[in-house]
């Protein structure tokens, strides 16, 4: 008996071209210095943020340090997305690959850089878990050390995707690539390395890098001995008048991830434009707004910041 096996359909010209463009962009993104500078900056900041003299300082600092890699990926995105703003004018404006298809190829071409950044974050988190966690609270009922939860560990990879998409979208939209790259990197840095400037509650919902744990005010009448044994506490001191409960709020962290996914989708839409792009912008914006609303709802009463 003869069995006919359908041969795999040859990839279309569009798909083959997209793959070639992705390969070219991938090579360029890996040979540019920005990812590696970002990794170095993150490693340097993570190393220097250890040994904090206050509870959760290291824990916050480690998450915030990913601003370095995120900035590097953003700059790579701006460079790739802005290629049609070349000196003189667009390169090959008459070529069969149109601007939207170019943007898609350039966006997808960042995946090796994003993958390396994700791998780097995995290594950082594995090291943190192997070392047994970080000092997170002043007065534990049980332990005062914690490791990052899965939801928290998912934040950097989503940030990397978001930064790449935002870079391509903004690079495509403006002829002033250098200004956008520097300004964007500064914004990311401001939301990361100076995360403490974003510790008032509304900022925690909308910041790019949410550095938990958060702290919930327990009031002046609180008696530590009455607290459940699973709680971790912070002392009253000159910065806070009463006892606080220190916790990594999983629901807040989870919905903040959804918020980041929404923004990433919106920027992806802005990058690739067209019908699919407009749909992504609308869907992403709706998701991001909804995720902020849910964060507001799930935020515990008495939260005083991070």
């Amino acid at each position, binding site marked *: 008996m003869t069995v006919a096996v359908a041969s795999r359909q040859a990839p279309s*010209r569009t798909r*083959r*071209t997209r*793959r*070639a*463009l992705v*390969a*070219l962009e991938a090579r360029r993104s890996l040979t540019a210095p920005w990812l590696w500078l970002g990794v170095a900056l993150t490693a340097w900041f993570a190393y220097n943020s250890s040994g904090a003299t206050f509870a959760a300082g290291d824990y916050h600092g480690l998450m915030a340090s990913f601003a370095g890699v995120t900035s590097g990926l953003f700059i790579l995105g701006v460079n790739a997305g802005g*290629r*049609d703003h*070349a*000196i*003189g*004018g*667009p*390169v*090959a*404006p*008459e*070529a*069969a*690959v*149109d601007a939207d298809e*170019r943007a898609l190829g350039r966006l997808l071409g960042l995946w090796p850089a994003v993958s390396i950044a994700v791998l780097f974050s995995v290594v950082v988190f594995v090291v943190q878990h192997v070392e047994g966690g970080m000092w997170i609270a002043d007065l534990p009922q049980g332990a005062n050390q914690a490791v990052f939860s899965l939801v928290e560990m998912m934040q950097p990879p989503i940030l990397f995707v978001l930064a790449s998409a935002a870079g391509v979208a903004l690079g495509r939209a403006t002829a002033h690539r250098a200004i956008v790259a520097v300004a964007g990197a500064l914004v990311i840095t401001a939301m990361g390395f100076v995360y403490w400037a974003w510790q008032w509650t509304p900022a925690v919902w909308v910041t790019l890098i949410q550095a938990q744990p958060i702290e919930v005010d327990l009031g002046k009448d609180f008696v530590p001995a009455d607290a459940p044994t699973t709680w971790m506490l912070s002392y009253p001191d000159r910065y806070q008048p009463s006892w606080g409960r220190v916790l990594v709020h999983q629901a807040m962290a989870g919905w903040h991830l959804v918020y980041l996914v929404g923004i990433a989708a919106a920027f992806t839409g802005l990058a690739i434009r067209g019908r699919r792009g407009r749909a992504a912008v609308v869907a992403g914006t709706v998701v991001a707004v909804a995720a902020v609303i849910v964060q507001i709802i799930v935020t515990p009463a008495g939260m005083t910041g991070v």
Partner: protein
Amino acid sequence: MSVVSTSALTRRFGGAAAVDSLDFEVTGGVVGLLGPNGSGKTTLLRMLSTVLSPTSGDVSIFGLDPSHHGQRTDIRRRLGYLPQDPGFYRGFSAFELVDYVAVLKEMSERSSRADEVRRVLAAVDLADVMHKKIRALSGGQRQRVALAAAMLGSPELLVLDEPATGLDPAQRLQLRSLLSEHGRRGTVVLSTHHTVEVAAFCQRVIVMLRGRVHFDGTPSELAQLAAGRVWVDHDASAASERAWITADGTIRAIGDPPTGAELVEPTIDDGYLLIATPGAVR
């Protein structure tokens, strides 16, 4: 069958018509566009290369409609375009830039693409500097990089906006031979300010003024427009539209010659100047 065909083709920028109700056809060979700055050459070439849409009228390339997305892509697969100000990535080498353009032109197979990139770079005499960064190349070398990119895949239609800009005489000669060779197999439409280029290798010349065609014929027909209207003299004459002192010290004048003037054989320059001189259009 016509490669390019336009009908009442018009492009306006604000209230001004850069190209105004243009009708012409191109069936092959090398066609040169002449005209002063602002005459609409670049706007016309941008429309022919599908980069710019007309405000009104029609343009058809290879019998296809560039306003239709699918047909525009089909046109672009058979087209090469050198803009007046080509874009460059300064951090790329010449090879990398042309290779990148080759991908944008759907040459996805890596080794054959690399062969094609080497071929076009060699054709414009850049083989020895192909791995130099664009930022390190001279203006003429950059122009040739852009020309090489336009020639990728030997397109059936080459649209070139002032391709000789920045080239030295030897490179211009090379360009002539390259484009005339291309014109034997396909079609080249180029704009230039150099009438000598047009005379050297264009089979047809179109002179544009204020967005309209004022002459369409062969280079020798353009020269013959000035027959009987070019003379040499030892003194400037009020009858001349244009006059200049030549290398031998005599004055060459174009216009209505005075009685007894020593008429000379006109060149394409004379014909062009006669058309392009304000108030001299007959």
